[in-house]
């Protein structure tokens, strides 16, 4: 193995060298190599190659996108600033060539392309799709929950009529189904390879897929050193437009300062998910920085209605008027993202997220507090997540400072990472806290389903309103073209702003810096999509 000369390996980049069999695939920084190799850095750990596995974290979702295909895919659009973003409005064929929906909207019949093969050469058939979907709804955890969102609950809903016809039967028609098929979860695996590596204890080959990519996607993972790096190699037989990058080396660099030095020096071409502060400063230095507002996502102040003063709507309004929105936006977000305050008094559009009518007005805050049963103020802890301290801490401090001015005493309580989710979302026991939720399926009713419905995971405020419950039920599956949809949605917004259990602050942005890479596209799953990337042409 050691006799392989470095030169031959460098030349072999993307030229069919079985890199996975090497002790270390030698790879070359793109600025020196013509071969289309890019190096990207991020600060997170990819902990599995299989999104369906228990415990797979968000950074790992990108494997499902880069190495696997789905029945359908979202399109790509160019945003106003010239950067690329996925396009929620366009759903285009991926493995499926075409599809038909029955009159009542409950039967989807997909015709598969016949020219698509897995990376080992086996043709992709409807049986692979069936097996992969069965897997997603059976293994439990996040994939199963996400499938449910599209009305995909049980294996008996899926059927492979023949090699190229796949049928989904729904219990009820839903506008969420088709987009849910384009998210990372329902990815299509090579069922034969998987079955060959399954055991009685592990019928879904979770162990094997955890370490191997067995898809038909644009890339395969040729090397994965957990906690260090991951190397993608282009699949030259991919059915889509071939990516401009032949290899992408994704290195994990925990230190922000180091990541920043690397991108500034140009030793790496892409730095993913950088802090707002770096984004601003790197942009000032002339680097290409993409800051894309994350669709359907808002940073909010949560007011837990289980906590006595917050059951009083006047207290909630008082707090909403006591928040120094603009100062927070400048200090915690460095002005990156979209402000979510100071909107019109009346809700006139179904656009979401949209700004609340609240502004920083301490007099109004005092007025509302005086009307409540807590004119003399009260004491409340303000909880934040240590893992998200970069935006939560300055935000919390500024709010605490202003609450003091209207007589509410608040102390900062920092909760360490592993405990945060339990405390904020599962036990929902934090009185006053910060929260950020973004729904993958970009509909306001989907956001409300998760964040405003009683008992649902991201409703950390324990909010319950009967009208909201009914409205979400009624709108969630309704097509947006239905005349009943828009009025109900606007009514939902009105109640949310009137009751204000979650005080919107701003819509956060995902920041990516590039120094020598073109074609970055934003995705709602907030991970790197290597398919559109290419080394800078200049």
């Amino acid at each position: 193995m050691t006799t392989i000369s470095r030169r031959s390996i460098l030349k072999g980049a993307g030229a069919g060298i079985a890199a996975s069999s090497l002790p270390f695939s030698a790879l070359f920084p793109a600025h020196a190599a013509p071969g289309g190799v890019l190096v990207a850095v991020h600060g997170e750990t990819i902990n599995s190659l299989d999104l369906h596995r228990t415990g797979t974290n968000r950074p790992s979702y990108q494997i499902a996108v880069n190495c696997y295909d789905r029945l359908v895919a979202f399109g790509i659009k160019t945003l106003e600033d010239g950067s690329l973003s996925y396009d929620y409005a366009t759903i285009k064929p991926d493995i499926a060539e075409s599809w038909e929906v029955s009159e009542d909207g409950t039967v989807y019949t997909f015709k598969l392309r016949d020219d698509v093969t897995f990376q080992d050469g086996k043709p992709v058939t409807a049986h692979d799709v069936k097996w992969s979907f069965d897997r997603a709804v059976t293994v439990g955890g996040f994939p199963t929950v996400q499938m449910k969102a599209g009305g995909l609950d049980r294996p008996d809903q899926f059927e492979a009529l023949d090699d190229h016809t796949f049928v989904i039967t729904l219990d009820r028609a839903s506008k969420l189904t088709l987009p849910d098929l384009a998210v990372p979860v329902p990815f299509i695996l090579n069922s034969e390879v998987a079955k060959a590596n399954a055991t009685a204890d592990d019928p879904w080959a979770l162990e094997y897929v955890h370490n191997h990519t067995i898809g038909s996607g644009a890339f395969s993972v040729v090397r994965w050193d957990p906690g260090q790096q991951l190397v993608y190699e282009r699949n030259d037989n991919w059915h889509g437009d071939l990516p401009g990058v032949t290899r992408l080396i994704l290195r994990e660099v925990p230190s922000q300062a180091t990541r920043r030095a690397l991108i500034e020096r140009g030793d790496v071409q892409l730095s993913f998910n950088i802090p707002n502060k770096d984004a601003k400063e790197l942009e000032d230095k002339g680097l290409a920085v993409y800051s894309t507002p994350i669709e359907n996502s808002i940073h909010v102040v949560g007011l837990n209605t289980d906590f006595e003063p917050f059951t009083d709507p006047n207290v909630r309004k008082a707090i909403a008027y006591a928040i120094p929105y603009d100062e927070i936006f400048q200090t915690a977000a460095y002005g990156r993202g979209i402000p979510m305050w100071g909107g019109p008094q009346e809700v006139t559009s179904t656009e979401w997220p949209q700004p609340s009518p609240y502004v920083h007005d301490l007099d109004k805050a005092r007025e509302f507090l005086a009307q409540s049963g807590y004119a003399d103020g009260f004491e409340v802890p303000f909880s934040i997540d240590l893992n998200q301290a970069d935006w939560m801490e300055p935000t919390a401090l500024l709010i605490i400072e202003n609450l003091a001015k209207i007589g509410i005493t608040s102390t900062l309580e920092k909760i360490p990472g592993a405990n945060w989710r339990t405390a904020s979302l599962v036990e929902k026991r934090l009185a006053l806290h910060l929260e950020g939720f973004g729904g993958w399926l970009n509909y306001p009713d989907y956001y409300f389903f998760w964040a405003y419905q009683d008992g649902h995971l991201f409703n950390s405020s324990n909010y319950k309103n009967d009208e909201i419950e009914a409205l979400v039920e009624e709108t969630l599956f309704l097509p947006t073209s239905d005349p009943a949809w828009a009025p109900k949605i606007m009514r939902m917004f009105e109640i949310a702003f009137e009751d204000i259990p979650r005080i919107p602050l701003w819509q956060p942005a995902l920041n990516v810096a590039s120094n020598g890479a073109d074609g970055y596209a934003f995705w709602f799953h907030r991970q790197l999509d290597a398919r559109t990337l290419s080394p800078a042409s200049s």
Partner: protein
Amino acid sequence: MERLRPILVRVAQAIPVVIGVVVISFVLTRALPGDPAVYFAGAAADEASIAEVRAELGLDQPLPVQFLYYVQDLATGDLGRSLSTGQPVAADLARRLPASLELTLVALLVSCLVAVPLGVLAATRPGSWVDHLCRVLVTTGVSMPTFFTGILLIYVFYYLLGWAPSPLGRLDFMYLEPDKVTGFFLFDAALARDGETFMAALKQLALPALTLALFTMAPIARMTRAAMLSALSSDFIRTARAAGLTRTKVLYGYALRNALLPVVTTLGMVFSFTLGANVLVEKVFAWPGIGSYAVEALVASDYAAVQGFVLAMALLFVALNLVIDIVYAAIDPRIGFESR
């Protein structure tokens, strides 16, 4: 056999320590705040899926049962699986421990090469400029936090001057990882007679090792100086001088040899705290060592990884203490293992 027996006895004495560590690490990890099932159930997990994850991780069992499973797995060499990296803990440790050890050992070597001569010089010329230089250097080294030194070195040598390679772990992309023998890249590359890889690994190692070395120099230099001073003022040195032995012979043959004992003790201590303290250096240089691994695991309440780490460190220190005891005996034959 004469000499081996006491060593075996010493090893046997370590067994209760290891058992204690197993129990304590198990209990302590369970006392960590946070629920790993919730953490790892993922972004949109509901109660049912959290329960599934809990069952899958065996966390729905009562503690004593969990402990039994843990011990049973340990007996077969299975340290469990880390949730944060998705890999078996034993494999993670096997890959990361050499990285940390290599970094720490090279740092200590550099540190000793500078600190011991500096300490000797300072002791032979107390109050001179060398003594002052020694004091300034060690004070600066120890008073700067390691992550700060690290970032400063990156800024100067990588960002400004461009002398150092990109701070991206143990090897640049261009190089093949040497065949694994010890897991120490320098050593393995040398064994494979691959000079280029050796130099590449050395270059990557230079800045992080220097960062740590600056930090560890202080105790070693100070201890060398103090031990040398006390040795130089003792009776046997005066006798040696009176007997007309050369200055070199007195200094290195007698004084330094006697001063080495406390230095070795210090070295053992420095080694143990450096191995723990290089977390920040590992983070700054993206060094894939066990320090950053353990911290990530702690934050995520990743039980298996934390337990594995604690156990590995405990075994390491048991071994280290043994080695120090043996080195003692080698330096000063009067010190044996037998209790007197």
